[in-house]
């Protein structure tokens, strides 16, 4: 039996259920999706929970239809969302760009199979000058908070936002509390289509080209797309989020995102306890990337070790912002479970510890040998 009394405020929930409930708490009233593992369990949760909350969940016949349904619901003023894993979100890219350019807020849940969607989330594959604000939670409780924050930011800026989850967040269970986040009140969506201004000369229009009506001309594509680009610059400046620890005196800083960062953070704490001068930096927003914070965190580091479960995607952003780009080295790699649906053997504490130690080679080994350290922690 545990020495600790159970926390009465926690519920044991699968991540997908917790995220669905958080989305509904945030006011999400429309969801459309197409099954694809590990996103499937979020779709199932939405189908089960949304109707009782006065919402609608539609079994979209394709990802393309799902994202366009959500775009329509959003254009009509509802908080709307869709999702898939990276493979299905590849199909949605045109519509995601469209929501950025016609300013319909949209939340996209990328319940990804691994970390190979970093470029997809942060660069996107649609046309035009747009970005997608992406939050990468490290675990289910953070994903619950991020979900509400993403609906808020999508509405506040009228932009598409992405939750970059994974199988650990979608399909594992944990004790979690679903609470409404205290977020600022937003103005009413007077731009949303409800038909009420028809025939008045002031009817509304949602259009990527923003040319307006002959009675009330809009800015047109040139000025509209300049304004969109300026808006994303404002988002980039205002919405960077990160978490770092033990970087002040660190010779080595490990950089990781999402679930993987929970593993790397554990190893960094372990090594710190063993006397290594090592710190940890986790971008919480992948876009906007917290570049200035990374520069500060790596100011004294001789090793900036990037652990990501892909062939090297976030490392581009790390190299761009690290205090000394020659210190940046990849210690992750492609690692896929044989099913293709989740992570491979690289996401494991002993493997990560070994790679971090190897990445620190050249540094004076002042700490406890790692095998002794591991034993002392048991």
């Amino acid at each position, binding site marked *: 039996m545990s020495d600790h009394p159970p926390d009465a405020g926690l519920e044991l929930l699968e991540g997908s259920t917790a995220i669905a409930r958080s989305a509904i708490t945030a006011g999400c009233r429309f969801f459309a999706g197409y099954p694809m593992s590990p996103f499937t369990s979020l779709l199932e949760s939405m189908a089960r929970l949304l109707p009782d909350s006065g919402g609608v969940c539609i079994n979209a016949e394709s990802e393309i*239809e799902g994202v366009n349904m959500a*775009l*329509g619901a959003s*254009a*009509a003023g509802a908080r709307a969302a869709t999702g898939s894993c990276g493979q299905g979100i590849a199909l949605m890219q045109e519509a995601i760009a469209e929501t950025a350019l016609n300013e319909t807020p949209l939340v996209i849940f990328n319940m990804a199979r691994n970390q190979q969607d970093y470029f997809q989330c942060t660069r996107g594959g649609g046309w035009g000058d747009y970005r997608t604000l992406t939050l990468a939670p490290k675990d289910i409780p953070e994903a619950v908070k991020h979900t509400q924050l993403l609906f808020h930011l999508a509405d506040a800026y009228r932009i598409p936002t992405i939750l970059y989850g994974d199988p650990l967040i979608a399909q594992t269970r944990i004790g979690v509390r679903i609470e409404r986040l205290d977020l600022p009140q937003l103005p009413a969506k007077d731009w949303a289509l409800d038909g009420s201004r*028809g025939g008045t000369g002031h*009817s509304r*229009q949602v259009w990527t080209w923003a040319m307006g*009506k*002959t009675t009330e001309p809009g800015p047109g594509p040139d000025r509209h797309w300049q304004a969109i680009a300026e808006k994303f610059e404002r988002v980039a400046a205002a919405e960077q989020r990160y978490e770092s620890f033990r970087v002040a005196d660190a010779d080595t800083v490990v950089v990781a995102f999402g679930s993987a960062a929970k593993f790397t953070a554990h190893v960094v704490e372990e090594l710190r306890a063993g006397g290594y001068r090592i710190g940890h930096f986790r971008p919480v927003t992948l876009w906007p990337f917290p570049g200035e914070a990374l520069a500060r965190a790596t100011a004294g580091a001789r090793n900036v070790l990037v652990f990501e479960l892909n062939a090297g995607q976030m490392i581009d952003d790390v190299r761009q912002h690290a205090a000394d780009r020659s210190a940046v080295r990849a210690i992750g790699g492609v690692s896929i479970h044989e099913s293709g649906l989740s992570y491979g053997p690289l996401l494991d504490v002993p493997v990560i510890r070994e790679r971090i130690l190897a990445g620190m080679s050249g540094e004076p080994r002042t700490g406890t040998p790692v095998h002794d350290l591991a034993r002392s922690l048991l």
Partner: protein
Amino acid sequence: MTDIVATDRPPEGAAEKVADFRPSLIVGEHSLCPGCGEPVALRILLETLQELEIVQRSIGVVGHGCYGSFVRIMDVDVLQCLHGRAPACATGIKRVRPDAAVFTLQGDGDMVNEGLAEVIHAAARGENITCILLNNGVFGDTGGQQTATTVLGQRTKTSLEGRDPAHHGYPIRIADIVSGLEGVGYVARGTVGTPRDVARAKRMIREALESQLAGEGFSLVEILTMCPTGWFVGAPQGPDYMEQSMAREYAPGELRARSAPRGA
């Protein structure tokens, strides 16, 4: 008494418009070609919204084609959506605003080429929306290329010797396909080649919208529209050409009448 206007010399004063029969919901000049049938279809659609007194709860979803420019001159709430995706966007709108009258405006390239899945799925789901297809059998906006509804033998810029089934395949009769699906409340095909046809097409639009308002499910009105520019014929020849080519492939009429008794 009106003065008799002399016709043996140019008029002395500037010409003056004495009447405007444009419906009030059309708030600007369209920019489409002479002889185009699409502005006629827009007009009867907007007139019907007014006659049904649903203007202030109507939301249009407009796809991409020449008619896309109508979003600037229609005084109703409009979402200009991605090519082909209007029925999906209309689904999202209608599901969160069930009291709205939601219609799409799509060409054949938009609905039958790019968005074939969207319209069929929306119909089979019984989405309570009205899709208006403006079918001229050609990509008008890009200058006259073959679409999925181009009739056999028709010359286009991408079927120079005429649409040959051995190479280009056969046209799709989308209204016929949709009319066979469950979940559908009303399907009809009209044309705007003659005043009589315009009046018939307008009645079809009215039936479709009334079907939606009564919650009878998906409705589709396909309207054959003249595209003399894309057909490479003179503007005055448009209606006759349409009668002799498209209307033979796409027979006008109600393909699925409303099952509920009218006015009951």
